[in-house]
């Protein structure tokens, strides 16, 4: 609530922030929700030996499909599950 | 009867009495009676004047009404006097007869309490009993009236040398009469002092005791010592 008040009071600063855009204003961003990360996860899964077994295989496939269809977050979640499944010793 | 006593009153027994009473009729009656009994009487009709007189002059006795006008009532008057160190004996007259009122009056410093209406003889008897100055000699171990002798140590009663048998209560009765020899002692006073009770018997219980004592004392002697004072009480005295 207090933060909201502070934000609204600094309207001119905000305008300036928007003008400057990108770069160093705004909060740090978590990067593990982007399509780029999706690809790097997919690559990681691919080189894991246990990834050819179920359930990793189908989870990975679904994950990649979701990433490709424009749902990077859902895809990342599936890929992570695939990695996890692949870590478990058979 | 009173006139006789006036003629015989010794000089040192005359008292200077202050009467503080607002009712004019009662005041007149009391003042006259006390004067006829041979005493000097000053009168104040309200508490303030009474207090002023009592504090500034010497009196042997104060007779006060409890209910007085003027802001200073009898009780306050006595309290003030006592707080000033004034030890003059005080007799209260009051229409308030309850025990609490009596206690209040006596606690304030009064010495005796008489309720209205009262018999003048009672008032006189109590005034004289209170006002009698204590004797300057050592406390007596023997009391004497004419040829009657009371030995307080051995509890013996002798008349003209002859021993008379009396019961303990009769002894106390005789002792009281003799301590107030020459003064009237009323029945109520005897009941209070000898029996230590405060009520008014409807009949003549005290009379019977006194007459029994009198018989014992006077048997075989020609001079009676205990006299009945009509409408008043009793007195022990040498002269008839």
């Amino acid at each position: 609530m207090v933060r909201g008040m502070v934000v609204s009071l600094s309207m001119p600063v905000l305008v300036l922030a928007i003008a400057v855009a990108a770069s160093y204003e705004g909060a740090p961003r978590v990067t593990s929700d982007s399509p780029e990360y999706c690809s790097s996860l997919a690559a990681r899964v691919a080189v894991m030996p246990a990834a050819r077994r179920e359930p990793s295989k189908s989870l990975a496939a679904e994950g990649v499909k979701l990433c490709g269809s424009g749902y990077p977050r859902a895809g990342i979640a599936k890929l992570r599950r695939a990695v996890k499944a692949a870590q478990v010793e058979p | 009867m009173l006139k006789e006593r006036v003629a015989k009153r010794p000089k040192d027994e005359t008292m200077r009495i202050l009467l503080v009473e607002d009712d004019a009729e009662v005041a007149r009656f009391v003042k006259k009676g006390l004067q006829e009994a041979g005493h000097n009487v000053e009168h104040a009709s309200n508490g303030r004047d009474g207090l002023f007189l009592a504090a500034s002059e010497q009196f042997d006795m104060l007779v006060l009404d409890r209910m007085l006008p003027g802001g200073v009532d009898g009780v306050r008057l006595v309290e003030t006097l006592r707080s000033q160190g004034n030890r003059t004996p005080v007799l209260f007259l009051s229409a308030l007869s309850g025990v609490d009122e009596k206690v209040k009056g006596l606690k304030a410093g009064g010495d005796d309490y008489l309720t209205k209406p009262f018999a003048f003889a009672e008032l006189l008897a109590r005034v004289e009993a209170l006002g009698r100055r204590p004797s300057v000699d050592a406390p007596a171990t023997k009391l004497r009236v004419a040829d009657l002798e009371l030995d307080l140590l051995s509890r013996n009663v002798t008349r003209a040398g002859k021993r008379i048998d009396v019961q303990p209560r009769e002894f106390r009765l005789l002792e009281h009469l003799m301590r107030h020899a020459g003064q009237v002692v009323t029945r109520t006073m005897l009941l209070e002092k000898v029996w230590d009770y405060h009520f008014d018997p409807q009949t003549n219980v005290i009379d019977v005791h006194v007459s029994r004592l009198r018989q014992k004392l006077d048997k075989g002697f020609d001079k009676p010592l205990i006299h009945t004072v009509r409408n008043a009480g009793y007195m022990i005295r040498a002269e008839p």
Partner: protein
Amino acid sequence: MPDDSPPALAPPALPPGVRRPRFAESGPGAPPRLLKSAGFRFAVVFAAMFTSAAIALVAVLWWATAGALDRQTDAAIRADAVALGERWREGSGSGLAEAIEERLAVDIENEAIYLLVETATMKKLAGNLDRWPAEAEATNWFRTRVSHDGFEVEARLHRVELPGLRLLVGRDETEREMLRHLLTEGVIWASGAVVFFALVGAWLVRAVLQARMRPAFVTTAAIAGGDLSSRVALSGREDEFDRLAQTLNTMLDRIGTLMAGVRGVSDAIAHDLRTPIARARGKLEEALGTARDEEALRAVIEEGISDLDNISRIFQALLRIAEAEAGARRAAFGPFDLRPVLADAGELYEASAEARGQMLEVSLPDPLEMVGDRDLLLQAVANLLDNAIKFTPAGGTVRLAARRHAQAITVSVADDGPGLAPEDRSHAGERFFRADRSRATPGSGLGLSLVLAVAHLHGGALLLEDAKPGAAQPGLKAVLQLPLP
């Protein structure tokens, strides 16, 4: 010099906010205004306690939930940081980076945040944060806002300094934020409920108090208005209010008795003193007309004085009886031994008995400790002895005896006279009652009346029975019962 003081004008104004009370609302019987109402004050106290308890509850809840979450998160971060430290020791920078990526790859809950940078260049080596946050410089444990999944959320972060490297380990605190919002909402609703219940409670408590006190108000108002027979209604619940009502009623009954007593005395004085006063007056008036000489006049005047004394004595006795009946002297009760009192009474009347040729026997075997009024009891016993001696013939015996029983002390006076017929016994206590046979004897007829009053004052009773049942002259035995506490 002009007078500067303002002239005295209208009466001083009331302080602002104080309303002049409406007439109907003041006076006996009306409940107090809200602010003065004790019921309202009780309810305010209750509401304050309730609110404090609620606040305490919320504080505990917060600590237990959000606090627990915080502690859990910090513990996880700490453990993570320690483990990562281990990996760095084993495999230095690259090993650490690989460890971070591994963790991110299996972060199914999507809440881990890592950032590994070179200290010198601040170049990102591993992790999922795009920038080193400014808050990391101030402390090594901090919270900051991060953009996650398109939303701005709070994150808890821990900075670890390694040689040449700087590491941030953290967690997303979305859950915590959600909980805080929930709790805040809950608290706001709860506060509303508290205020509502407090107001309702205040109103209820005040209403209940007023309702319970209403009977007392109504009754006292009625009595103040003159209806002395009014009594407080009981609710039957036997609670504190009923007890108060009962006490009030007892007090009112007592007042009623006292007032009846006062009326009784006025009646007695009015009716029964008129006769002796009339007699005395008659005698004096007669003497005015018929007296022959000064001697005769003197005699009549003396008789007049004696009559007046007698009337005075009757009056005094009446007052004493009324005093005893009203219980006014109960306050003067004290502990004492009745035995010497009775012995003295016996001794007092023994002379009178002897003078009439009677015997007075006194039997007092037991110790008689009791609490009461010594003077009144003496007078009561004296009256009984007086009567007994009066009615006993010459040669007869009067017996005074007292016994201590388990629950009471009994004092009995028995005579040898004609006794009292049973039908007269119930009247014996009435003032001025004289049984036919005794009308000729002296006395005012108040004796037994006083004895009865004294007996009642001490919570006891007076019994009249035959001293020798069946005999021709049964005699009267008067028994005074005095209960022991």
